[in-house]
């Protein structure tokens, strides 16, 4: 059932309007500029944990989320990101300041400083915060999709996965369950060359991931992940099928992680010249070029969008930097529905056990 999209004319056949094309450009710029800012903040030691960038693969997350039904009242499609899908969450409606606060561990971050980076939830805008343990979100999203099917709602669940994540038992169990149930689940495998330092050739003995779709009895399709149009078309088709009751899809995009696993990773395992070769295929530059060549935008329009993004991000940075760190005692709230019982000799507990 695997099909490969011919990406050469994807742009000229697009059904996207001029405004939509500009909006996609806005999100591509937003993703890239926000990550650039995060890198600066990381170097200034203002990012508390690691920083995981999507440089070179922004088109995938942005264009795939753009193909979904996006709402702000908990009635739209629902996505679960992997670590490099901030762009997709921005499209769903997450605010740049949310990510800045998450990375800087601020008290008014969406997780009140308890969790980091893209690990947060907004049901209204349709995204669910992941945990680090790879594969679990495929199971969770199978349940989201199953719910849509059980309730007869024309909604779609989409999960992004790295190539590495596909090797977990959880990925297989989750996807297989959705496939068997003909639940409206779309999984996009972002084949970006590496999982930490492990090349795809050491992750799977098969040449590609899309081949697995047939094994699950699901629909499979592969495309160039650096081509906004191809990704958008492919996900639009999968979403239409899912809404139509045609079940789960396993989509594969071919892209590349130009930065290391995280900022601390010097990428010594990458063969010489490989990163440069992919730099030449930069998805944002490529999209700009296509818009200009095909008359979908003028250089002035694109510059204006990039400038607007820069201003928005600067405002978000100021807001996030001014945000307070969390109050220590807030660590105690909501472990399970407010039932935390303070214990002696831990913070929040009376020092004398007889009076605790």
């Amino acid at each position, binding site marked *: 059932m695997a099909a490969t999209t011919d990406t050469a004319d994807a742009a000229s056949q697009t059904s996207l309007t001029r405004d939509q094309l500009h909006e996609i450009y806005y999100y591509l710029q937003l993703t890239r500029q926000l990550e650039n800012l995060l890198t600066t903040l990381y170097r200034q030691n203002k990012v508390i944990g690691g920083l995981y960038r999507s440089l070179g693969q922004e088109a995938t997350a942005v264009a795939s989320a753009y193909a979904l039904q996006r709402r702000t009242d908990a009635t739209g499609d629902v996505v679960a990101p992997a670590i490099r899908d901030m762009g997709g969450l921005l499209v769903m409606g997450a605010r740049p300041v949310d990510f800045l606060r998450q990375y800087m561990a601020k008290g008014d971050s969406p997780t009140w400083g308890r969790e980091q980076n893209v690990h947060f939830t907004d049901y209204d805008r349709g995204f669910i915060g992941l*945990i680090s343990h790879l594969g679990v979100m495929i199971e969770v999203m199978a349940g989201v999709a199953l719910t849509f099917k059980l309730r007869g709602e024309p909604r779609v669940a989409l999960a992004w996965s790295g190539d590495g994540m596909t090797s*977990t038992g959880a990925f297989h169990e989750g996807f297989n369950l959705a496939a068997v149930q003909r639940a409206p689940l779309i999984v996009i495998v972002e084949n970006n060359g590496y999982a930490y330092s492990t090349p795809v050739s050491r992750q799977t003995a098969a040449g590609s991931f899309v081949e697995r779709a047939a094994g699950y009895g699901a629909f499979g399709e592969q495309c160039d992940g650096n081509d906004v149009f191809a990704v958008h078309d492919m996900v639009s088709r999968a979403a239409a099928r899912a809404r139509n009751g045609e079940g789960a899809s396993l989509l594969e995009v071919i892209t590349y992680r130009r930065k290391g696993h995280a900022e601390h990773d010097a990428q010594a395992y990458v063969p010489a010249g490989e990163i440069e070769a992919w730099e030449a295929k930069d998805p944002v530059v490529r999209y700009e070029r296509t818009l200009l060549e095909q008359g979908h935008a003028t250089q002035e329009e694109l510059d204006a969008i990039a400038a607007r993004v820069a201003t928005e991000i600067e405002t978000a940075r100021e807001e996030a930097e001014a945000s307070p760190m969390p109050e220590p005692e807030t660590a105690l709230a909501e472990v399970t529905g407010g039932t935390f019982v303070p214990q002696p000799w831990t913070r929040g507990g009376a020092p004398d056990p007889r009076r605790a």
Partner: protein
Amino acid sequence: MATIEQSMKVREKPEHVRNTEEGRPVTMLEAIREALWEEMERDDSVFVIGEDIGVYGGAFKMTDGFLDHFGPKRIVDTPISEAGFTGAAAGAAHMGMRPVVEMQFMDFVSCAYEPLTNYIATSRWRGSGPLPIVIRGPVGGGVRGGPFHSQNPEMAFFHTPGLKIVYPSTAADAKGLLKAAIRDDDPVLFFEHKKLYRAPFLRETLPADDFVVPLGKARLDREGSDITIVTYGMMVHESRKAAEQLENEDGINVEILDLRTLLPLDEAAIIESVKKTNRVLVVHEDTRTGGIAGEISMRINEKAFEWLDAPILRVTSLDSPVPYSPPLEDYFLPQVSDIVAACRYLANY
């Protein structure tokens, strides 16, 4: 002409696994690396399996340089499949190998809960013979790693008969215990606190000979007469700081017992110390409810109740996931001031 395999064998040891040989002090990370290297040299059936351990040398660079020397048959890079490679380690052990499984972070051992608790832990008991596997990796908080890169998952396994659990607190112990674990015929979980890996204060010059620290024996870290602190891992060092403060400010003389091995638990050493000091505080970084302190207290209750002059107390992390933001994580983790306060309470009881 030498074959590739032969020329690999004669290649020089990398600088960073020659510290002890050349009389230089090592960090805990270097001590563990040396133990691993020496055991691989000593016994061809020892091999390492895990994620990114080859060219990259592991997320914490534990196996840096190993691939060049030992080759891909002994440094096996895996897909992201903790359940898969832990189960596979069992199969290899059945066939006479001694696998050392690296968890990139011990948090991910939860994915291998199934093969570990059901298959591996019951194997010898069910008559399938010894199962020499070591599962090792970084644990612990205080590094702003958030809830999934900071856990202390010992209690999920402490309750499983058939496993051994080791949690060293010094460089020498880390090396000696890892060697013992690799040579042990039972499955051993080996916990390495990531905050201790490169801690400069742990640097020590190790004995040049092939020394092994036996599993199941606690170590008297500090002798004292007034209060016993039973602890392990990172909290040995926090307890030491507390003991020094108590000595200086209150004249309270604290004894610190470093368990080193949690399973089997050195109950005799605990009871002996309690009989001497009559007051006991159990300190661990793992969360409180269902934590190991409960088990230790109960054993003391059963075997040394008459010797107690005060209730057994415990200082632990809060009953919550590990928070990411520094003020929250510091609030969550046991602090030296908590240990000091609890000891003062015990002393004045």
